[in-house]
């Protein structure tokens, strides 16, 4: 991060100054601002919240939402939990894999990144997905890829 970004981030995090209990929120704010959490941001969060870097690192690595590299333009979250399995999400995941999207490793493919999630609360209309936050019912590989490419464009 450049000094400029550090300063900007520090300003954004000012609301958490000295608050040992705000590490998670500070990381969320960081990711909202930058799109991911660069390693050097861990030190900024530690300093602002007056905790150790290790604590921040521990929190950062515990939660699956946090990313340490810039995310793809389009993120597709595919539900792989039971209710969606009952509606064919296992097959959907296999099909996506065949099309070059591995939801388990969440590897970026072009501007699209597909990742697994456990439940989106849309369990009667599975397989469920979220494309950049927009809910999708009865997902198919074709539907997801088309829509994702559209969003990523």
């Amino acid at each position: 991060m450049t000094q400029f970004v550090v300063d900007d981030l520090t300003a954004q995090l000012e609301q958490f100054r000295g608050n040992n209990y705000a590490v998670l929120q500070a990381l969320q704010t960081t990711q909202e601002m930058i799109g991911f959490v660069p390693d050097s941001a861990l030190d900024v969060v530690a300093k602002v919240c007056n905790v150790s870097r290790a604590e921040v690192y521990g929190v950062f690595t515990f939660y699956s939402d946090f990313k340490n590299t810039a995310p793809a333009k389009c993120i597709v979250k595919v539900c792989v939990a039971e209710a969606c399995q009952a509606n064919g999400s296992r097959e959907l995941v296999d099909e996506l894999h065949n099309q070059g999207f591995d939801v388990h490793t969440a590897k970026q493919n072009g501007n699209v990144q597909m990742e697994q999630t456990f439940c989106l609360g849309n369990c009667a209309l599975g397989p469920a997905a979220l494309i950049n936050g927009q809910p999708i019912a009865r997902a198919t590989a074709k539907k997801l890829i088309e829509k994702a490419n559209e969003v990523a464009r």
Partner: protein
Amino acid sequence: MTLLSDPRGVAPIRDGIGEPDYGTPKSTSDVIVSVTIDGATVQVPAGTSIMRAAGENGCAIPKLCATDSLEPFGSCRMCLVEVDGRKGTPASCTTPVEDGMVVRTQTPKLGKLRRNVMELYISDHPLECLTCAANGDCELQDMAGVVGLRDVRYGYEGENHLGAEKDQSNPYFDFDSSKCIVCNRCVRACDQIQGTLALTIEGRGFNSKVSPGGLNFLSSECVSCGACVQACPTGTLEEKSVIELGMPTRTVQTTCAYCGVGCTFNAELRGDELIRMVPAKTGGANEGHSCVKGRFAFGYASHKDRVLEPMIREKITDEWTKVSWDEAISYAANKFKAIQAKYGDNSIGGVTSSRCTNEEIFTVQKMIRTAFGNNNVDTCARVCHSPTGFGLSSTFGTSAGTQDFKSVNKSDVILLIGANPTDAHPVFGSRMKRRLRQGAKLIVVDPRKLDLVESAHIKAQHHLQLQPGTNVAIINALAHVIVTEGLVDQEFINERCDTEAFARWMKFIALPENSPEVVQSQSGVPAQELREAARLFATGGNGAIYYGLGVTEHSQGSTMVMGMANLAMATGNIGREGVGVNPLRGQNNVQGSCDMGSFPHELSGYRHVSDDAVREQFETLWDVKLLPDPGMRIPNMLDNALSGEFRGMFVHGEDIAQSDPNTKHVMAALEAMDLVVVQDLFINETANFAHVFLPGTSFLEKDGTFTNAERRINRVRPVMAPKNGKQEWQIISELATAMGYPMHYDNAAQIMDEIASITPTFANVSFELLDRVGSLQWPVNAAAPAGTPIMHVDGFVRGKGLFIETPFVPTEERANRKFPLLLTTGRILSQYNVGAQTRRTANSIWHHEDVLELHESDAQMRGIKDGQKISISSRIGETTMRAKITDRVPAGVVYTTFHYPVSGANVITTEYSDWATNCPEYKVTAVEIRPADSSADADNSLDDVLMKV
């Protein structure tokens, strides 16, 4: 399988060092409850865990994540038990006993559960017990035996962590993640014991892994205190020495020789080789904790630089000649005698060492007072804490701190002045941090932004960032607010203090010149901040003052000590737990060296030489005539050397040429003498001017006692035979004898017996008693047979507490046009004092040169870049070091450490000193800095330092 080498039937209650481990901390409750465990009914304090209740009563429950130095965690699930009337199998570590509870710890069901848990552990653990460094000192191995694991039915082909990379970056221990059982003991130790929180768990679930914040240990926040290594139940965190040399086979308990905390360690040896130093849970000062110096930096004791044979030379320009002990001693004795014959009895003297044992110090001062026949004895405490003795004895009546370290656990407001405990007294620093994290408030008075001002989970309520040299103005302002705002504890004063003196003091302190508004202009500290800090201290509950050399090493060091004593009395903060005035002593035995009569004006127990009755006792005991007048202090000796009146000096384990101010002056004085005898481990800077070098013993070879900053007399036991062939007290005795005063002791215990026989505060002390009870805080006598953790409980030692007026007299040393910056000095965690010891260990990896900290604006003004070599000059001298731009110091103030002779910080410090004790004013020197010639750059690179190590 190879793992099951020790299938014992019972769980051993022990940790790595053989001390009992009851799994969870002791409950402090007064309520006793009754609980039945495996059929036996036992009584324990309420709040005791089932695990501890069982363990204390001889019924060990298997455990892995529990250890009694840490709060229970409940993760390993080895300690599950059954409780009548309760569902399931609760963990015995996290379940407190309740009255009438019926617990079963050994049932077939529990046996199977434990075995099945162990089977899971071992399914992800390397099968290399026989070649593992922790073999025999591994709780996982022990427990596998205890639960009777015979087979791992999962096989070893499943997902595992066996390929995890080792982190060998720390110079003292390795981290082998493949052996980790994720019990979190290391993480919790770093949090709860050390308070650095450098460790965490990375990831979650099966991928959970201990991590120093995603970095390696060396580059992480880790301060290498060893608490994690100590806490690790497996070979995951293991001392390199154990890996290289093997498990220790025997243990000797002794006391660390670094700072004034005085930690108790178990020195663990394999044959005669010291493998590791493990902090003892029974240690009164440290209670199982340690720092990087005591825990790991003991290698200097066997460093190749150590001199083991006596040496002499005619002139300091000559080469050294190795000689026998007899020759060296008679050479020194004859020369001393010759000097006295020619220049008078008063022409020689000596210096005792605060690093040596009480017994050694006692013999040195005795030699000077008897064989030398004068009182020209002084101690290196002169240059650090002499004002403490003066100030506290004037006001309270004793030359020592008022509390034990544990007292801080009860403090509500801590006033920290001129001390940096997390660097200089780390084990106490951790204790203080624990209390602060429990909610105690902190006021820091220091020109520099210390870690305690703001670091993980620590934030001082007030940082009074004063200009160096204005301590007294600040303490007066604080007292002024308390007096003028009616916050004094009048009841305490009426009952405990000299009220006439108080009335005088009150009149003085209420003067406008002491108001925060006036002091603001002198000190740079905002008046409002001063007022708030004063109110907090006066009204925030138990107020405790801790201070260090930032108080004493000033021209008004003694005044400041009295000012703090006044403040403590005015707020009623004396005579109970959680309060007091507490010096943090620099060296391990500063307290002891003062206690033992090292000052030229007083005999052991702080009794003035002019006291006829006292002198008579000593004269009878020693069979000599003693002088009733004070002898020379170190600066007097040096001054008189230059004027030719003083010509011979015995320097016991101190490096005055590096540690004393105005190096050039010191060197000239040493050079002017006819005989300088140095006793030390290494050829130090002072030894360059010596004619006789007497090799000393390291703390690992000594037999005796150290007295720490809390007046705690700790035993120092010989871990190995003296490498130089003689105990130092023996050498001193021989020198005294050779000079014509017969002195002989069979052992160190005899010396302590002599000290006890003639020193009222030590009356009941003996090695036998210390060995029996561990340690004692003086006074230890008929009135206080168990020692005195807290002083002045029922009244001041001097009778009534004495308030003394403390006018602020600014030092002569001021910033001016030519020298516009104020230099102040201090210490860093990894290095110690002049560095003679720590520089000869791998500690240099953390700090391999002294740097000058300066503020960005001062750097910019002078075109100085971070890391650049700069020259620092004062009116006394000039030296060079690297610049470090930081916001730790305010503009106008620069700071450095004095651990390296090459940077020679004392080349520039001045001749100013405390008015009462002549303790040098190290903490204020007006300087100017400028970029230095870049050619000097290479002289102190890390590579060079590591080569030397």
